[in-house]
């Protein structure tokens, strides 16, 4: 912190690190007052819940009785005794693995394409792609479009074109639920991470392209890979984190589209399992174990992907 001015370096010599820190803390007292309101709430509503959830996951807490410490029992029960949880883990991973990378790549390519447009048209096309993710519960229109009678948009047109001959129960049939939900999830997934990429493309210095052309870059693909992506790596990383975190959180949309629980648990995710045990059965210890596993999954996915992205263009 003191590298910029010579006199502070002199003062610092002959002082222990702790003492130095204390002096600095006193000097910047006002800074602590400025961060205090936010970080008190942050600890209260983010840090403590995460830690508490980890601790509770080793107990039998149920809001009524004093919790017993059961060590790994909740986790053992989850993996060995709870078939629905295994379905939930499988579905969560399928969603995350499909929608996460897919929405990220879609965002990236559309942001790239949109960047080639003239500014006015660019603003309009950005809105077209971004609108589904900000329009509240507009995704419910999919239940109308894919409703089970012959007046549903999909059924009617597929019947008229002779692809099917009687109405299909789209949101009740296990065969269609998963792909349909993935389509709806992707449709709503061009959100903040997409905007981050749109902005990222715009800050790339244009002179870099000219320099690249001199150095033998021949087409737009090479330009993207060798110049654009390495330059906007910070945006790539943030966008990936937002996309991954979102891909674990489509539970709300699933409940709205196919109900709770979904037919034969075919779209049952860890979020639903969590809601079931925490919000309805009040087995808080067990639910905390689910939350802890979900937490570890999200964090490790994000760390893995950001680690990979650091290698882009190097």
């Amino acid at each position: 912190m003191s590298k910029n001015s010579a006199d502070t370096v002199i003062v610092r010599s002959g002082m222990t690190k702790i003492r130095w820190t204390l002096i600095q803390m006193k000097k910047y007292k006002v800074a602590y007052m400025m961060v205090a309101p936010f970080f008190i709430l942050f600890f209260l509503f983010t840090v403590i819940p995460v830690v508490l959830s980890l601790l509770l996951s080793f107990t039998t807490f149920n809001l009524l009785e004093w919790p017993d410490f059961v060590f790994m029992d909740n986790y053992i029960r989850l993996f060995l005794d709870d078939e629905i949880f295994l379905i939930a883990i499988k579905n969560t991973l399928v969603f995350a693995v499909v929608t996460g990378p897919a929405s990220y790549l879609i965002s990236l390519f559309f942001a790239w394409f949109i960047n080639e447009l003239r500014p006015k048209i660019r603003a309009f096309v950005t809105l077209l792609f971004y609108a589904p993710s900000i329009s509240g519960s507009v995704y419910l229109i999919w239940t109308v479009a894919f409703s089970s009678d012959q007046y549903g948009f999909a059924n009617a047109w597929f019947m008229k074109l002779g692809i099917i001959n009687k109405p299909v129960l789209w949101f009740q049939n296990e065969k269609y639920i998963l792909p349909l939900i993935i389509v709806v999830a992707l449709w709503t997934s061009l959100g903040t991470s997409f905007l981050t990429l749109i902005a990222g493309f715009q800050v790339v210095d244009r002179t870099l392209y000219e320099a690249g052309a001199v150095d033998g870059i021949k087409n737009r693909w090479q330009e993207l890979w060798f110049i654009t992506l390495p330059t906007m790596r910070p945006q790539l990383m943030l966008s990936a984190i937002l996309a991954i975190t979102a891909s674990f959180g489509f539970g709300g949309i699933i409940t709205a589209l196919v109900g709770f629980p979904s037919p034969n648990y075919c779209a049952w995710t860890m979020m639903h399992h969590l809601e079931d045990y925490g919000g309805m059965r009040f087995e808080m210890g067990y639910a905390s174990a689910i939350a802890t596993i979900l937490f570890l999954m999200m964090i490790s996915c994000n760390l893995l992907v950001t680690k990979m992205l650091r290698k882009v263009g190097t």
Partner: protein
Amino acid sequence: MSIKSLNIFKRKQPKEQFQRSINRTVKGDIGIYIILALFGTLMVIPLVYAIGQSLKPLEEFWVFPPRLIPVNPTLKNFKDLFRRMGDSWVPFSRYIFNTVLISTVGTAGNVLFSSYAAYAISKIPFPGRGPLFKMIVYSLMFSSTVTGITMFIIMKNFGWIDTYLAVIVPAFCTTFGLYLMKQFMETSVTDAVLESARIEGASENKIFWKIAMPMVKPAWITLIIFAFKDLWNTGANMYIYSEQLKSFNYAISQLVTAGISLTGVSAAATVVMMIVPIVVFVITQSNIIQTMSTSGMKD
């Protein structure tokens, strides 16, 4: 990742002028236009369908095959929606009041708390700011679903269950808000200006209000939009039981799921809910893009 490679963000970008770039072929451009037109249409069809449904007169719902856009558009569904709102047990004005209250107070607190913290972290070299910011970055890596259970327990102990506080106060500390503000302040507020203000004896609080905040206007406009959008879209909340405290979005979604007889009315309700965030985004788009351009993760 080195800090040096990022000084590109520090340079003021010249007002962008569109010009035919190097390495572009006409064939490639046409390909891009076709792909964008195709997928743009696919993206927008459900939205058009929702608007179409909301304008359809009753008899057109039973036309086979169904139409995307009504032949005789009518505003009857919207009139029905507002009539139905007037008839509901809890008056709709109450739901609207709830949503407006939650959105404005929550957004105001969020912007204030985040900006203060972001200013201190990005512009005052106090010990501990590194670890604090690191925690924020990690907290972007998981969603609030994870903390739902324990939040409920905390809320219960505070006695906040079934009060506005349970919705509003947690909205004050969205980590993404702090993250955006901090990244933008770091690149847009120049240290030299702050230094000279400090030498003249201005307090940090004064510098924050008079110098830093005006310089980061796009950032707090963006934060207002994001925070407001999230709170506006607040639906059923697990901490709120009383009907009188529930949000407009919740009440609307009750109408949407009320069944096939309501298809027109529920589509009208959906359209009402989606118009507000879209209009707000259109007005503020350039601010948002400018803010997001500094939002990258540069660890």
